[in-house]
């Protein structure tokens, strides 16, 4: 989902008439280009793609980077074959086109289709590569078509000059029964760096935990780290208590419950199981069972429709406050946080008597107060 501006450099030289890729090299290349354009615009709607031809009467830009797929396809139609490919000039013009892109926040990428022989020296290509790297432009090379001895070597040299943190790739596609575009699907050219699907916990391309760069957003990174630690501590305590409290399951009744708390505990359990949307988790049930032991509001079988981060935090805070062994400092620091979070939660009225008492119980943390809560009239908020 990287925001990217891409320039695709097409080889439309005479070598492209060859039929070793079906129906001819040029057509296979055109299909591949269409595929790439589609993939780029799909992965991020703000991505832009532009096309230029390297052969013909000289390097010509067909479209500057645009989000309009139709325009790109239309341009591909009018391309004529002829002449010789000028790769160095093509890459440099592509770099220029990217420099003048509209959205400066986009990463720059050039994709080169190298179908004809490369007549440049390795050194020239390395210099070009270095300039690209210096301006943080990534380069993908698709080596297909004509195979002379020096070509892969030269292209590899170009790649190593450009490559910065594995953002640039080279793909060698020999002629064969498979279409060029089919082979490209499985390559990093189309898949980007992180591969297809990401887990919520995985960070595509980032090295940091939680996918948040501490340099960019230190408060968020810190908040995420703190919540993960609280979560872990809670999970350990929960596992311990699940074992203890399993015997007490028969005593479970369902007195008045604050359904808000119910949903919050549910959502916290969702996070605990690390499976989104799994509300009937046995862990969730055991966790909810153990709370009556402390006269907490027990859990209805309320299906969570949303599990917001704040609600999970609140649940964690509640859990910890109910524990007798809970750390006093943790409760205190959660208390103000809890009240502020409660105020901002939709559907929770801070003036509600049950909520107020809940807050009071957090502060007091005494058995008697909890008993008082049990005697409250039920309050259904959802």
């Amino acid at each position, binding site marked *: 989902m990287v925001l990217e501006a891409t320039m695709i450099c097409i080889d439309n030289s005479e070598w492209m008439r060859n039929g070793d890729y079906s129906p001819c090299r040029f057509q296979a290349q055109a299909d591949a280009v269409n595929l790439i354009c589609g993939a780029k615009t799909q992965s991020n709607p703000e991505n832009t793609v532009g096309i230029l031809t390297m052969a013909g009467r000289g390097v010509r830009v067909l479209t500057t980077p645009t989000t309009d797929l139709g325009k790109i396809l239309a341009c591909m139609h009018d391309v004529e074959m002829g002449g010789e490919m000028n790769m160095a000039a093509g890459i440099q013009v592509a770099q220029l086109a990217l*420099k003048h892109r509209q959205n*400066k926040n986009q990463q720059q990428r050039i994709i080169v289709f190298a179908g004809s022989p490369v007549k440049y020296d390795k050194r020239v290509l390395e210099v070009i590569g270095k300039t690209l*790297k*210096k*301006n*943080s432009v990534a380069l993908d090379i698709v080596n297909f078509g004509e195979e002379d001895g020096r070509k892969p070597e030269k292209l590899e040299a170009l790649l190593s000059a450009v490559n*910065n943190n594995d953002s640039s790739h080279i793909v060698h596609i020999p002629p064969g029964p498979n279409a060029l575009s089919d082979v490209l699907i499985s390559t990093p050219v189309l898949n980007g760096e992180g591969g297809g699907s990401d887990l919520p916990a995985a960070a595509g391309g980032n090295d940091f935990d939680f996918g948040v760069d501490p*340099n*960019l*957003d230190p408060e968020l990174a810190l908040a995420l780290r703190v919540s993960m630690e609280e979560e872990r501590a809670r999970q350990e305590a929960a596992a311990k208590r699940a074992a203890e409290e399993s015997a007490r399951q028969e005593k479970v009744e369902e007195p008045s419950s604050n359904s808000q708390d119910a949903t919050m505990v549910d959502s916290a359990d969702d996070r605990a199981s690390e499976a989104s949307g799994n509300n009937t988790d046995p862990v969730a049930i055991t966790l909810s069972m153990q709370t009556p032991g402390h006269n907490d509001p027990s859990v209805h079988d309320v299906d969570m429709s949303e599990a917001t981060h704040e609600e999970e935090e609140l649940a964690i805070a509640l859990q910890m406050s109910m524990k007798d062994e809970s750390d006093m400092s943790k409760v205190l620091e959660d208390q103000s946080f809890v009240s502020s979070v409660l105020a901002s939660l939709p559907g929770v009225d801070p003036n509600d008597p049950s909520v107020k008492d809940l807050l009071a119980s957090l502060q007091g943390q005494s058995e008697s107060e909890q008993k008082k809560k049990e005697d409250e009239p039920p309050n259904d908020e959802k």
Partner: protein
Amino acid sequence: MSAESASAIQRSQVDLVDFVDWSGVECLNQNSSHSLPNALKQGYREDDGLNLESDADEQLLIYIPFTQVVKLYSVVVQGPEEEGPKTVKLFSNKEHMGFSNVNDFPPSDTAILSLDNLKGKPVGLKYVKFQNVRSLTIFIEDNQSGSDITKVQKIALFGTTVETTDMKGLKKIEDH
């Protein structure tokens, strides 16, 4: 470019690192393992082991936007004797420059760093050119010894803020 750095520091200067808009900070041609926060961020820049290093060649282009409009008085650039920067050009309020157009504009100020500067002596700037700075671009053109890699240990900017509204700090007034 004058060198009354001592008097500049006395005039209630603030280290502008607090006013840097980190989401927009960019550095071209940096080595990804030795990146800009190593030189700019509090804590990292005091650590001599952490440097900002250049990658493909010895030039570096650093773009620093600020959260408010600032006035810039002086700059400290620290680096090793050999690979530390030599010619440093500063451009104010020019967004998104590249290496190709960096020489198209006259810089707001140019500093040739001496070994003293590299040890931490501040470089005073042309005050009048930096009255209204929203963003600063630092172009490090070459280094002391002419080696292929330029290393920078610390970059500190000193100045004062002009009182502009920080949009992120605007809070709604609560009705009671």
